[in-house]
């Protein structure tokens, strides 16, 4: 499987964020997008996720399921963690598991994998920032998607959480997955670097 973007250009609010950008990643490979604040890392991820339309250029996924588009085969982990404070941890996770569909894993096991199983019945409103992030990561595990698009995935995670997430990313890559992550911190796995912006 190969994810590629050619000559991508993104314009937001009349301002050009980036242009002439090429990228590619193959199965089992991680791509780390780095750059200063405002360089367009999040915009690039949203273009890949189909949530922003690029002003120029094309994004393509070769070798995936021909019936499905790239966003339908991708997980997007953004700044906002898509959790409902009124629902419990287990309810939040099982909703996304049912709604996203496809190949799923047992929700209890996914919560255990991110060390949140003790809080399964707690309303999500009472979670700390790090715990919310762990719950979002459990969503990535509960439904199988070959492409992971991660925006600052390790922010708010403690050292144990980061180590745990590194293992999960390694497993995903070993299983033929593909990761594109925007990050300031080292990811902790072997990743190709895509530097954006520079002195912008």
């Amino acid at each position, binding site marked *: 499987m190969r994810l590629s973007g050619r000559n991508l250009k993104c314009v937001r609010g009349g301002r050009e964020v980036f242009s002439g950008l090429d990228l590619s990643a193959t199965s089992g490979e991680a791509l780390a997008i780095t750059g200063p604040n405002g360089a367009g890392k999040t915009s690039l991820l949203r273009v890949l996720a189909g949530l922003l339309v690029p002003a120029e250029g094309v994004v393509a996924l070769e070798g995936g399921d021909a019936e499905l588009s790239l966003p*339908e085969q991708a997980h997007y982990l953004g700044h906002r963690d*898509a959790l409902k404070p009124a629902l419990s941890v287990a309810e939040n996770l099982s909703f996304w598991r049912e709604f996203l569909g496809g190949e799923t894993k047992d929700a209890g096991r996914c919560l255990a994998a991110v060390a949140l199983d003790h809080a399964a019945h707690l309303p999500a409103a009472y979670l700390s920032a790090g715990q919310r992030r762990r719950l979002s990561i459990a969503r990535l595990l509960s439904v199988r998607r070959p492409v992971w698009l991660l925006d600052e995935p390790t922010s708010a995670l403690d050292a144990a959480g980061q180590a745990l997430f590194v293992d999960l990313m390694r497993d995903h890559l070993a299983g033929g997955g593909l990761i594109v992550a925007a990050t300031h911190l080292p990811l902790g796995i072997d990743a190709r670097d895509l530097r954006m912006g520079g002195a912008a």
Partner: protein
Amino acid sequence: MSALGALIRRDIRIALRVGGGALIGVLFFLTVTVLMPFAVGPDLALLSRLGPAILWLGALLASLLTLDRLFTADHDDGSLDLIVMSRTPLELACAAKALAHWIAAGLPLIIATPVLGLLLNLDGTATLAVAATLLAGTPALTFTGMIGAALAVTLHRGGLLLAVLVLPLSIPVLIFGVAASQAAISGPLPFGTPFSILCALSLASLVIGPFAAAASLRHGLD
């Protein structure tokens, strides 16, 4: 289909929890109808003549009140991004959300109608007629209101815009809803004529609403 079922169940569950929209709508409906007899005065004949219109206005305003959270809540916490990316067509997801909203916020209004009818000196037939028109007409309010909710999603303070956008669309529903209720109470029109038009409005909005809302959500992504 299980994806849509999950979405409907989640939205109903959130609406019924503390701070959800279901109770707010009913309480608002109750407030408007309870205050009206005090404002109009103790003229029973006048009250029963105004009754259907008051109930309809209360239901319309109550459904407007909770409608602006339909998409903004999901937009603010990022859920909307995942819904747009998912394998479920966005049109169906919009329809499922509107259906959940109607079940959680619209049905309680209809259930409350017989109780509130007593306050407005409506007899059994009249209350039944108003409840029937509300049952047929409130889906139209939800599904046309959804278009406004989708347009307002990317704007801050979009609630104000929502009211302006949705009001013109809900005028026909209001006219035929009240006309059908009046026809059942005092005639001279047969009940069936305005009631059929009301049902037609609901059916048309059931089809148009999800497509228009999905299109505006796609366009408004940022």
